[in-house]
């Protein structure tokens, strides 16, 4: 597409834009000349981004499957040399591509999208998407233990960024386009639009914003429509009958949460430890690292567990349908942790979502199998445990608690599973937080030398309120109906000089000791305070308001009343600029 939306000077800005000269200068003529505003066009573009991302992800999935069939054969079997050597050769090829042609495709696509959002004004080079497409297809197709979701997310984000740049969107909108495309890419890869939207909100944008939510939802749905159009509406794995027989079975799900939490910690710790060390090795070793990871994975496949190769969705499906014993499931989970760690830390392009789901499903199935062994009358289907296990690893490893719950519900289409999912995910999340304080995405960002905002920290940041800083109401509190003489009598014992006055029918003002004395000296002792005080009222605050709101008012008066919402004449406390600053200082310390 050519640069058909060129910025042009605006001859007569619209009335609502008259106060914003900067926006007039940077807005393309396209939006001013037509009735279509940039906001509306952004929404329309979100649909096209979804469609393009969906098409790209369909191609990406075909590319992975063709590569896999071409390289590993239609049904990889143990004890064949192909299984042993293809991952090695694939690793070598990927290393050359990454080092010489597409250096930007190393690392997490989620973080690169976040970086585009927070640092690079929404700009992701198109070359990154092309590189990710090719390198990830070869890596996953040749058996590296990685998934297609992260690359899909980045491909979607890159397409969105490219379209936005070609149309000269404002910087603000351009920044928002990357998450819109990311949601489309992820939704297409997962075939689950709600989870994708939640993930992008939870992990990339970090806040619920009406301005972007509509676009993200539209793009996600559009991309899923495209994927379903071409590849069918069925989910990545078929969902077996889900059953939770008895409330006591929830104990088993709690155990699953604990096991999954520790598995997530092991995976995260292994990546955190190995990744920087491998990156610090001499440059020539970068050529060999993916191949060595491939050798280990090939060996695992050769010796009898080809299930750990590639994304492994078909094996998740099999695990969910009781086609492995719990011992096999446990072994596969362990081997997948090893294989995924090696694939990821060696810089091989690919995502962590599918391996996370794989490990979770296998662990869940194993826990379900063990429970069935000891309590056959209590246990639901293995599929139920495997599905909950996927959510558990999502919550524990990726640390996206909301997405983890909704992902399971969306994929299963069964709300009856939500209680075990929430329970198990909560255990996994708490354990993961306890033993691996920094979430994996933040950890990778810091290892890459970037300082992107930690969205988990943002989510859990405590907000200070007025009630945290306010002081008890000073006595006496005067009333505007009182006479000056009565008021003077009341303040005789007080040790301070400023007094709040309650005004009828509502409102507050203040009076100093000196002013009151002056009224007395002027012989106005029998007049009411209300008749003498100026009509200006003090601003007031409520105890539950954010503390930052006090900053707007404390400079107007030395003492701001804090009143009850139900009765504005009832004084709950007072707040001053010193109180606000003292509280902030205390919070920082």
């Amino acid at each position: 597409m050519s640069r058909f939306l060129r910025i042009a000077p605006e001859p007569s800005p619209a009335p609502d834009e008259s106060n914003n000269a900067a926006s007039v200068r940077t807005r393309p003529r396209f939006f001013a000349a037509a009735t279509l505003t940039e906001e509306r066009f952004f929404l329309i573009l979100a649909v096209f981004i979804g469609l393009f991302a969906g098409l790209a992800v369909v191609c990406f999935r075909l590319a992975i499957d063709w590569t896999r069939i071409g390289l590993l054969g239609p049904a990889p079997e143990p004890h064949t040399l192909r299984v042993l050597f293809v991952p090695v050769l694939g690793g070598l090829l990927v290393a050359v591509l990454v080092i010489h042609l597409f250096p930007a495709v190393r690392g997490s696509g989620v973080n690169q999208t976040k970086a585009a959002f927070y640092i690079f004004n929404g700009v992701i080079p198109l070359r990154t998407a092309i590189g990710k497409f090719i390198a990830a297809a070869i890596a996953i197709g040749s058996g590296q233990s990685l998934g297609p979701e992260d690359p899909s997310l980045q491909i979607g984000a890159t397409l969105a960024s490219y379209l936005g740049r070609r149309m000269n969107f404002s910087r603000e909108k351009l920044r928002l386009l990357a998450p819109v495309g990311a949601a489309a890419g992820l939704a297409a890869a997962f075939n689950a639009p709600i989870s994708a939207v939640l993930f992008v909100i939870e992990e990339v944008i970090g806040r619920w914003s009406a301005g972007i939510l509509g676009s993200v939802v539209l793009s996600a749905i559009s991309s899923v429509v495209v994927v379903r159009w071409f590849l069918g509406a069925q989910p990545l794995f078929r969902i077996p009958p889900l059953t939770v027989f008895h409330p006591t079975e929830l104990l088993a799900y709690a155990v699953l949460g604990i096991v999954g939490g520790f598995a997530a910690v092991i995976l995260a710790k292994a990546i955190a430890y190995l990744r920087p060390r491998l990156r610090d090795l001499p440059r020539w070793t970068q050529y060999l690292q993916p191949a060595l990871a491939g050798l280990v994975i090939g060996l695992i496949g050769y010796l009898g567990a080809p299930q750990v190769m590639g994304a492994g969705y078909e094996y998740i499906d099999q695990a969910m349908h009781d086609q492995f014993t719990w011992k096999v499931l446990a072994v596969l989970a362990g081997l997948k942790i090893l294989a995924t760690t090696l694939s990821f830390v060696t810089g091989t392009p690919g995502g962590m979502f599918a391996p996370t789901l794989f490990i979770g499903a296998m662990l869940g199935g194993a826990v379900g199998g063990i429970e069935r062994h000891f309590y056959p009358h209590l246990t639901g289907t293995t599929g139920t445990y495997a599905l909950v296990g996927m959510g558990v690893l999502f919550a524990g490893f990726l640390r996206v608690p909301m997405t983890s719950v909704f992902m399971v519900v969306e994929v299963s289409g069964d709300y009856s599973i939500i209680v075990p999912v929430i329970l198990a995910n909560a255990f996994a999340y708490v354990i993961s937080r306890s033993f691996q304080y920094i979430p994996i995405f933040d950890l990778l960002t810091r290892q890459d030398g970037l300082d992107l905002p930690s969205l988990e920290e943002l989510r859990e940041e405590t907000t200070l309120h007025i009630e945290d800083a306010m002081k008890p109401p000073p006595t006496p509190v005067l009333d505007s109906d009182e006479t000056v003489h009565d008021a003077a009598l009341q303040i005789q014992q007080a040790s301070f000089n400023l007094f709040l006055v309650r005004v009828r029918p509502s409102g507050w003002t203040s009076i100093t000791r000196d002013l009151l004395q002056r009224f007395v000296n002027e012989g106005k002792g029998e007049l009411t305070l209300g008749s003498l005080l100026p009509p200006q009222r003090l601003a007031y605050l409520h105890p539950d308001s954010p503390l930052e709101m006090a900053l707007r008012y404390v400079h107007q008066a030395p003492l701001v009343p804090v009143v009850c919402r139900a009765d504005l004449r009832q004084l709950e406390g007072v707040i001053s600029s010193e109180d606000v600053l003292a509280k902030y200082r205390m919070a920082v310390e």
Partner: protein
Amino acid sequence: MQEATVKRVIERPSVVIAILTAITLLGFLGVGRLTKRFQEQQRALARHLYQQGLAEQQAGKFDPALEHFRAALTYDRDNFQYQLSLARALRDSGRTDEAETYLISLWERSPQNGAVNLALGRLAVRRQELDKVIQYYHNAIYGVWDANPEQNRLNAWFELAEVVLRLNARPQAQAELIALSASLPADPQRRLRAADLFIQAQDYEHALTEYRRVLQLDRTNTVAAAGAAQAAFKLGRYRTAARYLEAAAKADPHDAQIAQMLQISNLVLEQDPFSRDLSTEERQRRIRIIFDEAGQRLDACMNSKERQMTPGTQVDPLPPLKAQWVQMRRRLIRLGHAGESGLADQVMDLVLQIEQQTTACTPTTQDQVLLLLAENRGAVEQ
């Protein structure tokens, strides 16, 4: 000037949207072609793997067969035939839990499918879960079949009857067979199979009816004749039995069982004291002979070494029977008197008791005849 006009035109929102739409359509066309090719390739791979799996399954190599079925489903995962084959392979390799989970997932998608219900029914048979057996087999019988629905339904019904008999649920088996026989076409083989199952279910009345239907369709069917004879014999209708047995014996003179049944039937008919055409004297003579033979049987058994008391019984039943026999012999002189109209039946009751209580002593053919005569009073001539 012309370039400026072009630029102005393509900066219009409608033009931009039109261009994006055109790109989308082109993308759909291109990806559609790719997807079609991809899916064709996937289906071909699936077929190939499925055929390999079938060959291995037939060769009894269940594990490789399972792997190939699974691989086939990777490429065509909604193919019902592949799924069903995988489930059957799982079941046949003894992985019943996996098979059941798999089959239930198929059943939930297609609860009316006859083949799935039949597979689930067979799985329930392995687990001896009678309720589920009946439920799934009935679903199969009344379900939807892709090919040969009538034949598949009847086969499932026959299988259900056999299975229920194996699970010792005779009344249920009889009920199924009665319903099945009402649905059977005029096919001697199927009716013969139903009649044999009636025999196994000990429903001799319906068995005899079915054998007769077979013989109506195929008069030369000696198996049906033998079956009819057996059913009539079991019903105590020895005249009918003898007629069919003679036909069967002609067809297969070396069949010892038929010969023995024929001999017994003839003896029963010869000694039957309740035969309609008998004179009073002859009837009384036959009763007396039967009574005497029963007494001899009792004596012989009382003196026999092979007789042993049934464990747990405190009282020997034979001496009281002997006392009854002696008492009855005194009454027997009044046989035929006006006030003793029920005496013949009382004699036969005693004979029945004697024969039943002397089973510990090896019975002779005559003992069998006496027992049958005492059991089937009045029906023998049918």
